[in-house]
């Protein structure tokens, strides 16, 4: 009998699609069928969708939660139906409702990006203004990246962080960056919770005549997390300093491997963190293969 795996996705955007593609590729290798449902950012919908996967009696459910806490109900039903649940990309706080977690270590990812920024800024004296573009206020990965980033910046006691919300929306990021630079022309560095916002930052800096490449004395440090083509291009041409790229291929491979084991009723470990990898202008060429957004 063919093995069917339910894939409950929170929302479709670039990195999620890349991640799902990795999952699908891994499933195809093993001849598993994937039933994908997309909640479009709505927790209620996702709850309903997981239940519809349960009523289809899939063999396992891979879920990236819209919200970590609100699909408990549906997942408990999955437990009752003895369908193994693997959370991917977003960890779930309630250990009882899932068998395994595979995903990035967002605090660490934010920390890596912050660490590089600290290295670039440590020679500056006086107050250093740093702009932080937050993700959405209700996204755990966004919150964790911010947490890690701010931890890293504690190494710079004279840094002051200005945080603005963007809801992961580039247009909002654009306006927020522009206004922040109006209010604080002396901003020295920008951290983007997702590197897809880096082109927007570039637009603002070009407009202000501040878009100097890495190495220029007036260069504004730009780092981010994700690993998309936007970040890759920006780093390649020297606008951005470096990006933490998530290892999506491994997340994909690992989650299907775990699913396979769970379906075969084998014991697995609970937590599988796939660390991100930091690249910068110096090692970008060498690491191209690891950057999922870089293309072939």
């Amino acid at each position, binding site marked *: 009998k063919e093995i069917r795996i339910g894939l409950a996705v929170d929302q479709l955007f670039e990195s999620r699609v890349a991640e799902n593609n990795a999952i699908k590729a891994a499933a195809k290798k093993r001849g598993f069928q994937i039933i994908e449902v997309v909640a479009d950012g709505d927790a*209620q919908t996702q709850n*309903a969708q997981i239940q519809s996967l349960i*009523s289809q009696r899939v063999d396992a459910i891979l879920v990236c939660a819209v919200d970590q806490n*609100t699909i408990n109900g549906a997942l408990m039903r999955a437990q009752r139906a003895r369908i193994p649940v693997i959370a991917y990309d977003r960890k779930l706080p309630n250990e009882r409702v899932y068998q395994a977690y595979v995903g990035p270590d967002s605090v660490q990812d934010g920390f890596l990006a912050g660490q590089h920024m600290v290295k670039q800024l440590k020679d500056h004296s006086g107050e250093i203004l740093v702009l932080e573009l937050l993700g959405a206020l209700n996204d755990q990965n966004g919150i964790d990246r911010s947490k890690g980033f701010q931890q890293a910046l504690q190494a710079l006691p004279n840094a002051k962080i200005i945080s603005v919300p963007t809801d992961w929306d580039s247009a909002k990021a654009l306006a927020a960056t522009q206004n922040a630079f109006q209010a604080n022309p002396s901003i020295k560095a920008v951290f983007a919770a997702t590197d897809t916002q880096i082109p927007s930052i570039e637009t603002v800096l070009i407009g202000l005549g501040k878009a100097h490449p890495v190495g220029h004395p007036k260069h504004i440090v730009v780092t981010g997390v994700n690993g998309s083509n936007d970040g890759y291009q920006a780093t390649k041409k020297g606008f951005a300093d470096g990006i933490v790229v998530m290892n999506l291929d491994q997340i994909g491979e690992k989650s299907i491997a775990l699913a396979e084991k769970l379906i075969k009723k084998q014991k697995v470990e609970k937590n599988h963190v796939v660390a991100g990898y930091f690249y910068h202008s110096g090692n970008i060429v060498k690491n191209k293969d690891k950057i999922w957004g870089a293309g072939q």
Partner: protein
Amino acid sequence: MKEALSNQLKQNPAMPMLAVLMILFSTLSPYFFDAINMESIAANNAVILIAAVGMTLVFLTGGIDLSIATVISVSAVMAGVIMGHTDNVLLGVLTAVSVGAAFGLLNGFLIGFLGLSPFITTMGTQLIARGIAFSVSEGIAVQGTPEPVIDFGFALVMGIPKITLVSFAVLLIVGFLVALTSWGRYIILLGSNPLAARYCGLNTRWLELSVYLASGILGGIAGFISIANLGNALPGVGDTLLLIIIGAVVLGGTSMNGGEGSLTKTLFGVAVLAVLTNGLNLLGIPFYDQLMIQGALIFIGYSIAMRLNQAKR
């Protein structure tokens, strides 16, 4: 009996749509009429139904309440926080209802007494509610929901989820108020012609206030039910529901311009959207195509139903 049915058909453009969709999905997917699936449809639309009842009231008076979806979030968050601290369910219910009522009163005062435009006013209160929900919860779901609430979310009575029964009870009570009390009659008259309502000596300000208050309270109830359904209070739970709520009410056949509509219509509108999204999920249609099919079906279904409706009249 036959006449009553044809009367219902005439009045509810969404009813034939619902029937067609149910036949379609049950032939295409063996899982559709599955008990688990039916249960899931019922449970997951309780919140939407309650909020849609509130929105229907506001539409009947010719207004709009853009804040209702976010009132769900803020009252859920507040109730979640209170329950997290006290573990007292009753206190949680009271909090949810009173937070909803507070927003309803604010809307009602601004719109009914100061005469502000409902659209912008409720958009403003929506933003305030959202801001409060997010700052109180710091963006993440409020932890510590008491077990009885979670159990309530799972509980079934004769195969029907309890939260669905709550939403039906709300529908019945408000339906009774609208159809059988002078208050209900007056808000519809107000929506039909506000000036004539004034010339009839109706107290239009209080009527308007009462309607927004009611929709706020219903938002609060929906907020509490969302905790039971999802297991936690979530600050963003309502945000995505606004268009669904408005869509369901209008699809049911209640006019946004006031003076026409009913809660039965809204029930069918909610049901159509619920079955549609569920069925498309069951068929395993890719997300992008689901969007397109959903849009097309809503449009085609509505226009055919309207046509049938007119031909019969």
